[in-house]
């Protein structure tokens, strides 16, 4: 029976305003609890290893948010995480586990760098657009084979995207050590033309207009997934491929579209780093943004807004962690531990549930 509010219920409306304000917090309590729990475990580890908790956390916080500069660094690191978090999310919305974003990010980065240094100077808008386009295409192509194998033959994407990730990492490493190495000791390519650079918006930090591209991508992805019929089909295929198929959704097409967009987003993440931060392809420029995207996506509940928030959190952790490592004897690994704990507390249970459900269906 459907109920309408009774008079008794109407009386508590006053109280419910408090609830309304609290409700966003209540809705994301598992995530908040996971973060708190992760910090508790981090604290325990610090104590056990004989470090100062208060001092460490103070440095962590100040390193991430303590000054204009700190915030700039945090935001700089948020940008690639937004891209890879989105990349993971769209694939997962279609029930796919694109674990190879790191490879897609690397080939995307290289493609952007190449367009940046190989083409003659162009009007900036055109040059940047071309570089971004090249990165998106390279990243997208990098998952095309796994996508087709999955769609047509049912080959598990975890295996294929992972394998290709390593191929991508090795390929770009070869390119930057070999044919495209700029003269000198450091394995990096020539610098990109000034017309391909994304402008820095918070000097002296390396935060660039790439952040706006990341935010725009989040917005577009939200629109695509929830407001268009193609996104509707992708979500349906992810939740129940049989019903989706019966309802006229082409599941194979949805798989290919979702994975290619995922790869393109990871590729754009690479481009943002090259055009905005490094201005050339540098061997080892990514500390693993692609892998971190998995945690960002899961903590963000695969939702663009959630992804932005959790990318910010992980960006802050990394920035703060570096400050800790500089100022105290605590190694940077504490950040890795904190991240791992967040994943353990929030992502792992979810992942298990989803993979189990999939196992039952197959």
């Amino acid at each position, binding site marked *: *029976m*459907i109920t309408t509010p009774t008079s008794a219920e109407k009386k508590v409306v006053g109280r419910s305003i408090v609830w309304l304000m609290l409700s966003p917090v209540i809705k994301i309590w598992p995530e908040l609890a996971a973060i708190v729990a992760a910090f508790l475990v981090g604290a325990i580890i610090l104590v056990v290893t004989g470090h100062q908790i208060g001092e460490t956390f103070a440095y962590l916080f100040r390193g991430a948010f303590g000054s204009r500069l700190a915030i700039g660094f945090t935001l700089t690191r948020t940008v690639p995480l937004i891209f890879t978090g989105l990349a993971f999310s769209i694939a997962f919305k279609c029930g796919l586990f694109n674990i190879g974003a790191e490879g897609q990010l690397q080939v995307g980065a290289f493609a952007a760098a190449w367009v940046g240094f190989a083409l003659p100077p162009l009007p900036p808008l055109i040059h940047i657009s071309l570089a971004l386009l090249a990165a998106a295409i390279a990243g997208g192509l990098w998952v095309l084979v796994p996508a087709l194998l999955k769609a047509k033959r049912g080959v598990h994407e975890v295996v294929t995207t992972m394998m290709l990730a390593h191929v991508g990492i090795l390929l770009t490493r070869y390119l930057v050590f070999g044919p495209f190495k700029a003269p000198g000791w450091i394995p990096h390519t020539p610098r990109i033309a000034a017309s391909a650079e994304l402008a820095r918006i918070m000097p002296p930090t390396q935060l660039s207009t790439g952040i706006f591209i990341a935010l725009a991508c989040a917005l577009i992805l939200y629109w695509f997934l929830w407001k*268009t*019929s193609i996104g*509707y089909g992708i979500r349906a295929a992810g*939740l*129940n491929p049989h019903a989706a198929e019966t*309802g*006229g959704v082409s599941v194979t097409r949805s798989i290919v579209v979702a994975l290619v967009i995922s790869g393109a987003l990871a590729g754009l993440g690479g481009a943002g780093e090259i055009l905005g931060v490094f201005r050339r392809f540098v061997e080892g420029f990514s500390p693993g943004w692609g892998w971190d995207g998995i945690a960002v996506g899961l903590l963000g509940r695969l939702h663009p807004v959630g992804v932005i928030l959790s990318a910010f959190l992980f960006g802050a952790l990394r920035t703060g962690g570096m400050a800790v490592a500089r100022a105290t004897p605590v190694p940077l690994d504490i950040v890795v531990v904190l991240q791992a704990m967040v994943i353990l507390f929030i992502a792992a249970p979810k992942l298990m549930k989803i993979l189990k459900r999939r196992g039952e269906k197959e």
Partner: protein
Amino acid sequence: MTEDKRAPTVEMVEITKRFPGVLANDRVNFSVTQGEIHGLLGENGAGKSVLMSILYGLYRPDSGQIYLHGAPVQINNPAKAIGLKIGMVHQHFMLIPNMTVAENVVLGFEPPGLVLRSRDISSRVAQFAAAAKIKIDPNAMIEALPLGTRQRVEILKILYRQADVLILDEPTSVLTPQGIDDLFTSLRALRDQGKTIIFIAHKLKEILSICDRATVLRRGKTIGTVEISRTDENELTEMMIGSKMVPTRRAKKASNGKLILQGEEITAINDRGVVALTGASFQLHAGEILGIAGIEGNGQTELVEVLTGLRRPTSGKIMLNGVDLAGISPKAALDHGVRHIPEDRHQRGIVLDFSVMENLILGDHEQPLFKGFLSQLKYRFIRRFVDQRIDEFQIQTPNRETVTRSLSGGNQQRVVVARIFNRELTLVIAAQPTRGLDVKAAEYVRRKLIELSDQGVAVLLVSADLDEVMALSDRIIVIFNGKLTATSDRPTRRELGLLMLGETKDRS
């Protein structure tokens, strides 16, 4: 029945359970005594499944108390319920497909001892089955079994766990008439051994033939409990819906419309690579309702899949208004005006985690009606459209944004049925269209199907329910072992029954 002075086996007192926007159980009182089969009935959304889920520890009541043999108990989770010897068979089974029947039965409750000897297990399970008069091969693989047989495994599973109280939520909705007879034989045997059985069903005939007493719920409230020997269909119907009902029967049509669908020698193999459909030929005309009767697993699933583009036939033609549908995509079939009510709503019918609104446009989301510039869904229009559907089909849901998973089984089915009326259609493939619907809703759907045929739509009705097939169809074809056999003009139940078992007409 003499007055029983002992405490009831299960007594649920003043149980209240509220979900956001829904009062599912409103101070419900419910009690069953040992050794009875107790029917629980009521309209879709009346609160039957919720009440039983509370007894099985899946939900906690907001208030109220459960007594077991007179003693108050707290049942916080299913493990606790199993410990208290309460077992439940859900509408949707939870078995592991690539294990044998016996392995599934003992899973989690293996007999003590270090090594599991599969022969011991299967002989133990066979003993249990024999005692409960359940026909089953303990060594069969689950994945090879039809739904009806899997249900027996679920029942065995709870018996193996020593359950004394068995809750069966709509067990007959997946069964054929023969399967129902078998189930009833088992249930009677179990009752005679002193088990207490709670039986949920929508068909009053079933309640009347198997139950000792029955309790009726309406809109979350207990209406009353009756002795089956002292009641009849009319009284139960009135308790359930508050009024009498006239069953729909199809008035025979004299003339046939134009030929809509013609199947020519359709052959298809099933998922396991076995031939499931051999040379199926039939004709279906505008305005006609063609019934396909048959025991589950004789090729009707594959026939439906072939006609809706879900399965590519190995040979043969499917001519719809002169166009061959063989091997086209489901989307193309939809675009040709073929609409489908799938037999398994959870598998093919709905996306459980979609909202009611999203499920109501599934299949039409690519239509210009709903889709605009840049593939954008026209939500403003869709919302209005969907609200109308919810109204018209009386889908009980707090609102259109509610996740479909939280709807009662019958209301989920209404979603599946409602959306076939979204746009123009030429052919409806209705597989078990009234499965899980209460009497009123089932009548409504049957009337709607008749209405469609009156408007010139061709209807193919696939149902395990012989009464339904006979009441609605202009013609009936029996499917057995992948072959179609036409029947006489007005076949009797007996004739259909024999054909469904593969007896030819001359021998019967």
